């Protein structure tokens, strides 16, 4: 009987693990893959940036366009230079790439549409798009 109990216990655990495995892998697939930034430290802490980045760049856009204030701190150009940095072949991701572009990876996950890149460059100056990253184009 003791032997049976031990056996059952193992069996249940095994079944549990085998049931959980596909669930976990699915959950991992759903999470956004955030590409790593070039720099060591962002202009604000991660939690502040996650909550308030839209406010920072909204404020900056009005200052820059209407007053000509071009401080680099909350500049969208600087965000892109750091967060969509080129690889060793000087290639970067296109905004339509839901996996590889810093902005679209998260915005696809949270289903918030952004139109910044209808006008703004989605890559730093003098870089090429990665050939595999231009999905749907």
């Amino acid at each position, binding site marked *: 009987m003791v032997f049976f109990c031990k056996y059952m216990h193992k069996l249940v655990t095994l079944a549990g693990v085998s049931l959980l495995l596909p669930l976990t892998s699915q959950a991992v697939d759903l999470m956004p893959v955030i590409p790593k930034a070039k720099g060591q430290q962002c202009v604000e802490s991660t939690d502040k940036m996650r909550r308030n980045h839209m406010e920072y760049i909204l404020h900056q*856009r*009005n*200052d820059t*366009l*209407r*007053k*000509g*204030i*071009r*401080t*680099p701190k909350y500049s969208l*150009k600087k965000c*892109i230079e750091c967060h969509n940095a080129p690889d060793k072949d000087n290639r970067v991701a*296109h905004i339509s790439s839901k996996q590889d572009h810093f902005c679209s990876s998260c915005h696809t996950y949270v289903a918030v549409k952004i139109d910044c890149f*209808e*006008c*703004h*460059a*989605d*890559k*730093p*100056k003098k870089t090429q*798009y990665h050939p595999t990253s231009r999905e749907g*184009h």
Partner: protein
Amino acid sequence: MKQDTDMNRRRFLGQTAGVAGLTIVPGVMLYEVQARPADQAASSSVRWGMLIDTRQCDTGCTDCVTACKTENGWGSTETKSSPEQQAQWIRKVKLTDKQTGHVQSLPLMCQHCETPPCVDVCPTGASMKRADGIVLVDKHICIGCRYCMMACPYKARSFIHEPLTDQKPHAPRGVGTVESCTLCVHRIDKDGTPACVEACNAEGHKAMYFGNLNDPDSDISKHLKQHGGEQIRADLGLNTGVRYQGL
């Protein structure tokens, strides 16, 4: 009326300051002309302008147009638009006197008016004039109604009809918005010169001058004082920032 009063006051203050600066310490500059710091807003003490000497402008030359296209990334990007729809921030215009056969050539772009009609008609406030006289479109709030295109006497503005990719980081432009010459505002903010003027001078044509119209010691002001400069459609009283010689 209010605006006129303000402008007169500004002119008066500017002139007084200029005279004071000269009389207090003759021959010594009280301040050095430097690039405006990045955190400081553009000031109305400056008015950026351009002077074009049509006598030096060759009929076949398009160096200024090419430089503008390269700098701001327009021209070859709108592949699906018809030629009438494609952007033209600056174009070469040829004038022929039918009586005498005399031909003149000149570049025509946004004239950066002191009282811009495009700003008057804009329903959202997207069409705007910066403190230093540069007329711009705030594409964040432009709804693409194109009233400004109708209002502009110089046909200086274009509408983007198709989605664009691979824009220049310093010159954002996109579908559904209106655009025009920015006087290379991104260069001016770093104490630079517009790409067209730079190209014209680099090639040795010397048909374009750029500078501060409010500063009597700037090259452009000296040229204007000595040789004069006409406005295109001066009858409209827009006080354009772009002036022409030899028309």
